């Protein structure tokens, strides 16, 4: 490979950078590169040649700045004379639009005025600045290196290895308390147990979201979809959303002949009425787009699809597991109730899920 940096050598030849000869790598040396023709002659603008044009430009710039003042005043006036009338959406829109347009004019006036000034009246002659290698020159580097050497000698940083190593050890140890301090960001109890339980239990009624009214089996006509929360959730004071995030259920009624239930789940449904967790097994969006004829459930976030007639098995999209089914039955009063909690954790997969 070529050792000499070709054509870039000029600046590096000065004495200050004697030791600086960077490798060109696999760049090809060009002995017969064409010559740089140098800067072309400056073309003069109309405003340079014609004082009248310069005065016109001056007036135009002043007009831009004047418009800016008008815009700022307009925005201020609009703030006062287009107030928000509570509940009147048109007044909000006017307030937003007119204050905004006033400020826009105030800003664009300054912006275009300044740029127009720079382009037409300030000198547009191109100026040249020399570059130097980014590194310090040899002398400076030598001095800097000497400072490190002296500092090392005076402190004994490399010589007194016991002191140095114990300092490094101490520095590494100091952040440990900081890590521990973050433990109480969450309560003491382990989350994994909580993640495997929901509010559903034997005899808990299925109720409508958000009213909390219980649902009779007879209310669920074929083709219906009900959005369901467990009885008592509505009255819960603390942890309501946390419980809802696990317990939300979609209730659907299919023609009984469309339902293919496995042996152990045969009595988990009631007259074609089935209840499935609404929380996607992919990353937890509510899966709620139910198609009553295809019996497909679609998640609107990542398009996972579940087949309700086949125990919500995944038929498309990134989900890996079927939606958990809530076993249901009917109580003496004819209301739908859960037979038990879900038999597996709901929602997205996690490390300790199968433990």
């Amino acid at each position, binding site marked *: 490979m070529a050792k000499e940096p070709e054509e870039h050598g000029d600046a590096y030849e000065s004495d200050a950078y004697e030791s600086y000869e960077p490798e060109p790598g696999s760049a090809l040396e060009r002995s017969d590169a064409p010559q740089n023709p140098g800067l072309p002659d400056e073309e003069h603008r109309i405003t340079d040649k014609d004082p009248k044009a310069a005065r016109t430009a001056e007036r135009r710039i002043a007009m831009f700045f004047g418009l800016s003042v008008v815009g700022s005043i307009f925005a201020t006036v609009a703030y006062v004379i287009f107030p928000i009338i509570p509940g009147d959406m048109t007044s909000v829109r006017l307030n937003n639009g007119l204050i905004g347009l006033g400020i826009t004019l105030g800003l664009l006036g300054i912006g275009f005025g300044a740029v127009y000034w720079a382009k037409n009246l300030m000198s547009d002659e191109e100026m040249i600045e020399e570059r130097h290698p980014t590194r310090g020159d040899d002398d400076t580097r030598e001095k800097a290196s000497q400072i490190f050497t002296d500092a090392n000698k005076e402190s004994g940083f490399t010589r007194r290895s016991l002191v140095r190593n114990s300092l490094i050890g101490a520095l590494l140890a100091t952040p440990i308390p900081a890590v521990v301090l973050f433990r109480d960001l*969450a309560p003491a109890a382990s989350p994994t147990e909580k993640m495997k339980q929901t509010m559903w239990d034997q005899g808990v009624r299925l109720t409508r979201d958000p009213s909390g009214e219980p649902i009779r089996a007879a209310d669920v006509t074929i083709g219906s979809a009900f959005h369901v929360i467990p009885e008592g959730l509505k009255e819960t004071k603390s942890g309501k959303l946390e419980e809802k995030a696990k317990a939300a259920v979609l209730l659907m009624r299919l023609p009984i002949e469309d339902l293919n239930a496995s042996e152990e789940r045969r009595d988990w449904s009631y007259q074609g009425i089935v209840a499935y967790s609404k929380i996607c097994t992919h990353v*937890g969006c509510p899966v709620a787009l139910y198609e009553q004829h295809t019996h497909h459930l679609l998640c609107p976030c990542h398009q996972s699809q579940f087949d309700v007639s086949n125990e919500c098995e995944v038929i498309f999209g990134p989900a890996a597991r079927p939606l958990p089914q809530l076993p249901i039955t009917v109580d003496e009063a004819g209301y739908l109730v859960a037979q038990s909690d879900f038999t597996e954790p709901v929602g997205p997969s996690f490390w300790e899920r199968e433990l």
Partner: protein
Amino acid sequence: MSVATNTEQQKQEPGKGMKFTGAAASYIDDRTSASVAVKTLGRKIFPDHWSFMLGEVALYSFVVILITGTFLTFFYDPSMTKVEYEGSYLPLKGVEMAIAYHTALDLSFDIRGGLLMRQAHHWAALLFIAAIGLHMLRVFFTGAFRKPRELNWVIGFVLFVLAMAEGFTGYSLPDDLLSGNGLRIIDGMVKAFPVIGVWISYLLFGDEFPGDQVIPRLYILHIMLLPAILIATLALHMVLLVVNKHTQFAGPGRTNDNVVGSPVMPTFAAKAGGFFFIVFGVIMLMASTFTINPIWNYGPYDPSPVGAGTQPDWYIGFADGALRLIPPGWETVWFGYTWAWGVLVPTLLLIVFLAAVFLYPFFEAWVTGDKREHHIAQRPRNAPTRTGIGAAGVTFYGVLWAAASSDLIATHFRMSIEGVITFLQVLLIAGPILAHIIAKRTCLALQRKDREIALHGYESGRIVRLPGGEYIEVHEQLDEHERWKLLDYEEYTPLPVRPNEKGKITVGRRLRSAASNWFFEDRVSPVSQKELEKQPH
């Protein structure tokens, strides 16, 4: 700065106020030695090219974000305590919601100019990250990341990631249904992480999802920690910009050892300063005429409902798209522990992609072995393989991005979601390869065309009949200043496999030679002086 106005200036009558300015400058310099800074920076030269302004768009958007964001903090309260809505938006009256959402609604409906500031803040945020993205593409495709600017590329990359983090934390603050479902997705992704996932989620949310902690915590990240780091990193970015000086495109009079352009004072300062007001103005124009993130449509966060078309802001789209493109059933249970590949694979894919962007300058430096400084920005065609790699990366990102709106593509173009996703899955793998080949071949073809034009001029369209009856089209020569732009680039050769000092051929050397061959085997040499002279003019 010296107060002593020289006689020549006095003759030119610099205008009124000069005396006061001089006195003020002297007063300040006596106490700060500010004249040193003015002397070194005041006449610094900045080259002019529209693509050099993209970073400025990003910088100015960020300033707008700081200004509007400060206004928002005076009215917004990040509490997740539940209250009943008593504001003036009728369809939410009496609905139970977090105070955070309530105050965000009040900003929109009950505070004059509040909606304007919210919208300006959000538009500026989208513009900020878009401008950073475009700025990075400019730097990449012109090779402006080469020595001595590799570190500034790294700093810029950190800024890009910080900007995305700022965007995501801010997007979540209103605690509306859309952003709540976004947090739910983050929760689901975090939980999939082996060993620590559940605990990370538990600590972040302060309880089971959603808890009542996450919004205040994100708020502190959004308005204090992240902006502090961002501003410090940005300052470093600017310092290195000044130290390295700006790159310039090849042109007459422009060499690797100079900068040609306009000085900071006054021309560049006026242009850049004016441009700040223009960027601010354009953002305000968008904020006053186009609705962004109508949080009142979404309602307060509730884990049960969801809206069709639930998407993140554009800059998180590529991550959402990666999640959507995974086929069903990717999960295994090993020794009782669950490995959710459906989430882990796309997460790893994104990390690898971002790492590749981060490390690219070092990879190219390793391939070329070139240790010299480069200050001439390359035209993309003059680095065909790099341009091909960039095109592949853009395609890869673009496919992921498109996948995040697969449902909207399906409904707007009357296709099925399944069809769109399957097509994008194929395109994610085939697209980058095709894009690389097409871009590289196009670059080589353009280089050949440039060579032709440099040597023979361009076709003038004028047909001339020679005395012998032959017709020819006259080729018009470029003037030497125009021609120089086509001549000034460097050529690299492929590196053969060579043994090292110990006479061994290491795996590293083989790899490097293979990469070098991939980069430089197909190339078009720049025109030499001899070739130029041979041509009849």
